């Protein structure tokens, strides 16, 4: 047999790589090692979608998001309504009614005006549907080649109406994990128009404002411990982040996790796991076990959560991991991804 040869590759730690933006392990490392260590404060350290602040006795939530998606227009939406809905949703995940949004545009020289109008029109529609005004904004233009068409930042403020703090630190052993609907539509919709991976099929992004569903839960008097909208990195990333901050173990049942037929077909074809595929109109809710049935009843009458299911449970276990019981009854750790999930043929 030949000599064993196994070189030591250089880990790339001296520069940003694309995986830093994937929403998985490297993103979290970046946040911890660069941003948290520089900006440390308790609001930031709770690592939730938005920050909750007190001002003159009122509780406000504040959030910001930047959107760099390609293509700018895709089946079911544009970067514009992703941004509006995404920011509205981050506020909703803090238990806050969205009050107002800002929008900052970085436009690349050469971007067709038609494209910009389409995007802005979709933002107007999304804001109207979410009943949130865009009250202020900013515009910059960068040289051709420096901007990928358009980068969009949206920030939002909201009024916290949840009676108790909503976040990973409120999660308790015995909590039920509810998933608001079928997974993976947004990520697959994007892939369906990305060069090299196109396919035909009616997959539209699931981008939607989630506040009405959250409001319904709160108005029904349900003790909501934690909410998280599922974005890049999918269900797996959201659950891992929560488990690790809460220092508890979350178990999920694969057979209970909803995935539509078309999304499944696309995932099988490209070798992707739907648990890691991006969503834009889905969330997980953690409620006490004995309130799960009531919460399910409330949510399934909300248009954005008609497919809601109970998919898992929280357990006492400081390992802070997520485990999955597979369809065939075996178990595995549902790990955080290192970087972006790539299609595979193997």
């Amino acid at each position: 047999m030949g000599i064993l040869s196994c070189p030591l590759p250089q880990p790339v730690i001296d520069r940003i790589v694309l995986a830093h933006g994937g929403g998985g392990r490297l993103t979290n490392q970046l946040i911890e090692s660069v941003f948290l260590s520089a900006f440390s404060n308790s609001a930031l350290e709770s690592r939730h979608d938005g920050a909750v602040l007190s001002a003159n006795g009122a509780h406000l939530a504040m959030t910001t998001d930047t959107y760099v998606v390609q293509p700018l227009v895709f089946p079911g939406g544009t970067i514009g309504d992703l941004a509006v809905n995404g920011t509205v949703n981050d506020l909703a995940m803090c238990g806050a009614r969205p009050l107002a949004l800002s929008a900052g545009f970085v436009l690349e020289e050469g971007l067709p005006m038609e494209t910009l109008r389409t995007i802005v029109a979709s933002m107007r529609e999304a804001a109207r549907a979410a009943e949130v005004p865009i009250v202020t904004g900013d515009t910059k233009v960068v040289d051709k080649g420096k901007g990928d068409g358009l980068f969009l930042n949206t920030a939002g403020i909201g009024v916290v109406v949840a009676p108790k703090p909503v976040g990973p630190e409120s999660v308790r052993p015995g909590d039920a994990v509810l998933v608001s609907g079928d997974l993976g539509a947004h990520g697959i919709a994007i892939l369906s128009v990305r060069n090299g991976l196109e396919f035909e099929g009616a997959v539209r992004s699931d981008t939607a404002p989630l506040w009405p569903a959250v409001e319904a839960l709160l108005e029904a008097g349900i003790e909501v411990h934690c909410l998280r909208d599922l974005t890049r990195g999918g269900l797996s990333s959201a659950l891992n982040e929560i488990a690790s901050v809460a220092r508890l173990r979350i178990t999920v049942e694969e057979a209970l996790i909803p995935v539509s037929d078309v999304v499944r077909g696309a995932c099988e074809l490209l070798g992707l796991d739907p648990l890691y595929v991006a969503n834009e109109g889905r969330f997980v809710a953690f409620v006490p076990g004995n309130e799960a049935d009531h919460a399910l009843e409330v949510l399934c009458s909300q248009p954005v959560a008609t497919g809601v299911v109970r998919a898992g449970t929280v357990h006492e276990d400081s390992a802070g991991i997520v485990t999955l019981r597979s369809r065939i009854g075996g178990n595995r750790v549902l790990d955080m991804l290192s970087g972006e999930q790539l299609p595979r043929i193997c």
Partner: protein
Amino acid sequence: MRFLDEYRDYKAVQQMAKAIRRSTTRPWTLMEVCGGQTHTIVKTGLQELLPKEITLVHGPGCPVCVTPVDMIDRAVAIAQRSDVILCSFGDMLRVPGSAQSLFDAKASGADVRIVYSPLDALNLARSNPKREIVFFAVGFETTAPANAMAVWEAERENIANFSMLVSHVLVPPAMEAILSSPACRVQAFLAAGHVCMVMGFEEYVPISQKYGVPIVVTGFEPLDLLEGVQMTVAQLESGRAEVENQYARAVRRSGNRPAQERIADVFEVTRRAWRGIGEIPSSGLRLRDGYRRFDAEFRFSVDCIHAEESSECIAGLVLQGQRKPYECPAFGTRCTPDTPLGAPMVSSEGACAAYFHFGRRKENGDPILSTAAAGD
């Protein structure tokens, strides 16, 4: 999905597992050859359903893992040329070369694109006549028909700006290499179902006879793998050593003849170095002389950096099934998917990555999840 979901059915799987438990009376060590099979086993927790007497060791059927370092370096060097668009399957992007992976090269500005099929790369060549399109053709026999067709079409249409960097490997020589090693503990093989879909399984008969091992051509879904184990155990328990076909819905004894003919048109057998194992004679494919102008190794002359040997990474032993990933001292500590020491930690189907993602162990070695076999 038809012809997938039925083979993931809970009840059917439990029944098959029960049948295996009933017929197992002694310890047996089986190797599943293909990385895709490893992926299913670890992803579904299949090992838990097997009696503790049955040990599954994971074979070298991960072409990503076994692609030699200098081939990755060559791909990176070619990708860095400003006139080149390098196309690759997603699997290859993160595998570390001597200094960087294709992903790193892309981050530095190289035009590296993921494609679903080699025909997509050919389309890129048609629509970008001023650029050089290079397709990184890695794989076992399963992928060879597709790669052969891409070259064959390029030749027919006289597409001048298309070439292929070929790193194909063949399964039977690898199985023989494993069996002929004095440290070999493998008593039977679950052969790679999709490789056999192309090549048939006649070539396994002499191997089975020479080494006295059962070889069962097996599919990729949980029920397929369990049925493959069941058929293998039945042979072992009764002292037989034959080639059988579990995956008969997809695999025929003589395989896919048109595909074999196209492969033989375009490629010829050659020796290949397997990362972590070493050179195995007649274990790879290269483009025939008549298609040399489509061979990226000849079209682009690049100086390659030669890899340094590391004593820490035991990829070779893992790929030959002589060690489990968690038996490596660096597993999960110095070697993780973010900081891989070798290819099996990077590839989505590499044994080390599979164990890391799906079956983490505690520091004292105890599994976080119980893997006790279910009783009857």
